[in-house]
C-alpha cells in the first residue's frame, strides 16, 4: 500500500561525476520488497520523479540516482535537513525466487540490486552480481556488493554485461535485471529460464491512477507503476515496447 511520507535528508554523497547517494530518514513501513520505488515532489516541477529504492531499514531509506534532467539536478543539490515530499512503497518489487540467482544491473539500474542482494542473503541465498557501466569513471557500488560477500563482476563500455555473463558461465537458477531496455532485452534473450526484469517509464502519478505508463504485455495491459516495474521475462512483448 503506498504512503505519503515527508523524508528528511541525512546525508548526500557524490559517488561519481553525475551519480549521487542520498540517505533519508522517515517512515519506511510502506516499502516491503526490493525493486519498489518512491516518487518525489520537487520545487518548480509539476510531476513527481520516480526513483528506485537502493536500500532501506526501519526508519531510513537510501536512494542512488544519476543526474539526467531538471528533477535529478535539483535532487543533487539537497542538503542535510531538507525535506522531501515523497510517495513511498510504490510498485511490485522482486519475488526473491531461486536458490542460486544472478543479479544484473546496468547504470542507474544497479541501485535496486543492492537491496535485492541483501534480501537474498537474509534468506541464506548467495546471489552473484553482474554490473554494467559506461566507463570505469561511471562505476559505483562494486565494493559495496563485494562487502556483502557477493562475487561481483563489472563490465565497461563496449563490453556488455551479457558478454561478462557469457564469459563467466555462472551456474544459476534464476535471474533478476534492472537497466536500460536494450540491456534487459539482451539479458532476456541470453539467460535460461524465466527471469525478472525491472522497467522504467515516464510516469504521471506513480500510483496507478493515470495509466500514463501502461504497457502491453503477453498477459494483458500492465501499469509499470503498479503491476511493475518488475515483470516476468516471459510476459514481455518486446515488439510492443
Amino acid at each position: 500500500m503506498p504512503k505519503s511520507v515527508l523524508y528528511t535528508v541525512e546525508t548526500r554523497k557524490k559517488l561519481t561525476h553525475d551519480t549521487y547517494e542520498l540517505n533519508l530518514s522517515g517512515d519506511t513501513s510502506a516499502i516491503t520488497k526490493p525493486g519498489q520505488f518512491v516518487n518525489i515532489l520537487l520545487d518548480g516541477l509539476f510531476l513527481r520523479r520516480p526513483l528506485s529504492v537502493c536500500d532501506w531499514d526501519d526508519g531510513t531509506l537510501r536512494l542512488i540516482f544519476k543526474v539526467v534532467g531538471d528533477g535529478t539536478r535539483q535532487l543533487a543539490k539537497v542538503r542535510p535537513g531538507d525535506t522531501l515530499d515523497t510517495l513511498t512503497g510504490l510498485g511490485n518489487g522482486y519475488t526473491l525466487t531461486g536458490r542460486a540467482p544472478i543479479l544484473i544491473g546496468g547504470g542507474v539500474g544497479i541501485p535496486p540490486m543492492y537491496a535485492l542482494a541483501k534480501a537474498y542473503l537474509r534468506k541464506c541465498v548467495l546471489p552473484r552480481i553482474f554490473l554494467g557501466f559506461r566507463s570505469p569513471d561511471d562505476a559505483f557500488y562494486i565494493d559495496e556488493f563485494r562487502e556483502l560477500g557477493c562475487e561481483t563482476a563489472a563490465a565497461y563500455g563496449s563490453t556488455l554485461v551479457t558478454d561478462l555473463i557469457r564469459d563467466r558461465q555462472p551456474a544459476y537458477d534464476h535471474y533478476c535485471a534492472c537497466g536500460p531496455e536494450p540491456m534487459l532485452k539482451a539479458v532476456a534473450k541470453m539467460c535460461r529460464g524465466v527471469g525478472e526484469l525491472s522497467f522504467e517509464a515516464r510516469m504521471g502519478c506513480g500510483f496507478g491512477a493515470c495509466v500514463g505508463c501502461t504497457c502491453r504485455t503477453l498477459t494483458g495491459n500492465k501499469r509499470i507503476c503498479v503491476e511493475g516495474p518488475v515483470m516476468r521475462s516471459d510476459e514481455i512483448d518486446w515488439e510492443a515496447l
Partner: protein
Amino acid sequence: MDTKITLSGLTLDNPIIPASGTFGFGREFAAFYDLDILGSFCLKGTTREPRYGNPLPRIAECPSGMLNAVGLQNPGVDAVIEQELPEVAKIFRKPVIANISGFSIDEYAEVAAKFDACAQVGILEINISCPNVHAGGMAFGTDPKSAFEVTQAVKKVTRKPVYMKLSPNTADIARVAKACEDAGADGISLINTLLGMRLDLRKRRPLLANVTGGLSGPAVFPIAVRMVCQVARAVRVPIIGMGGVSCARDVIELMMAGATAVEVGAANLRDPYACPKIIEALPDVMREYQIEKLSDIIGCAVKE
C-alpha cells in the same frame, strides 16, 4: 458554511469532483483517503470497446503542468458496468459521473444507453473533446453542428442528466456550448486539455509517441476561467468547470466565473491528497471572502 451545490437535481455535499482520467475508478485513491468526502467523482473515460490507448511514452512534464496522450485507455463499457461499478460501490456511496467517449454518434448513444441502466450513475458526462485520439473524440466537440448531433443522440437514450464536455481547442467555445444546450444538454463541462507538444532534445524527436498530447495543470487555469465565463454568458444550464484547479481559491474563482461544480484533474496525480486538501480548506477560504453559501457565488463575477 454551506458548501452544497445542485447539478440538475443532484445535490452534492461540496462542488469538488475528481476529473475523468485522473482518478481511474477510485481504487488507487481509496488507499489514501475516504472517498465519501468528495462531492462526486468522474469515472475513467469509457468507450464501447476496450482500448489500450497510445504507445509509450504518453506523459511529459511541462512548465506548471503536464502533457498526456493516454488515448482513452479503458476496459470498455461492459467491463466498466460489470466489474468496475460494483467495486466503486464498495468505496463510494454517492452517485458517480460516468464519462463517455466515442468514435461515432452511434457509439456515444450505445454507451450512454448502457450507463442509463446503472443506478449508481448520477450524471453522464459526454466527452466530445479528447485530443488524443485520431478519429472522433475532439472532432465532435469543436464543431457546433456535430456537438448538437451527439447531444441529441445521447439525450434520446437516457433520462439521466447529460453534461457535454467541451474542448478548448476551438475558435468559439460559446457557440459549441449553445449548440449543446439547444440540443437538450442538461449542463456543460469544460475545459478538456489543450493540444500541446514537447520535444526530446537528445533524440531530436517529439517526446510523446503520439507526437501531441493534452496540456493540463495550473498552466491552463486562466484559460479555464476565461472559457467558463464565456460559456456562462452563453447558456443557462449549469456548468462544471475544470482546468488546472489546484486549491480552494481556484474553486471559488471558477465558481465566480460561472461554474456550479468544479472538477480537479492533474492535481490528483501530483498529490493524491489534492481533493481532500481543497475540501478541508474550503470553509476557511469561504470565510475569508465572506461567502456563507457557496452556491450564492455561481457566476457572480460575470453577470453583465
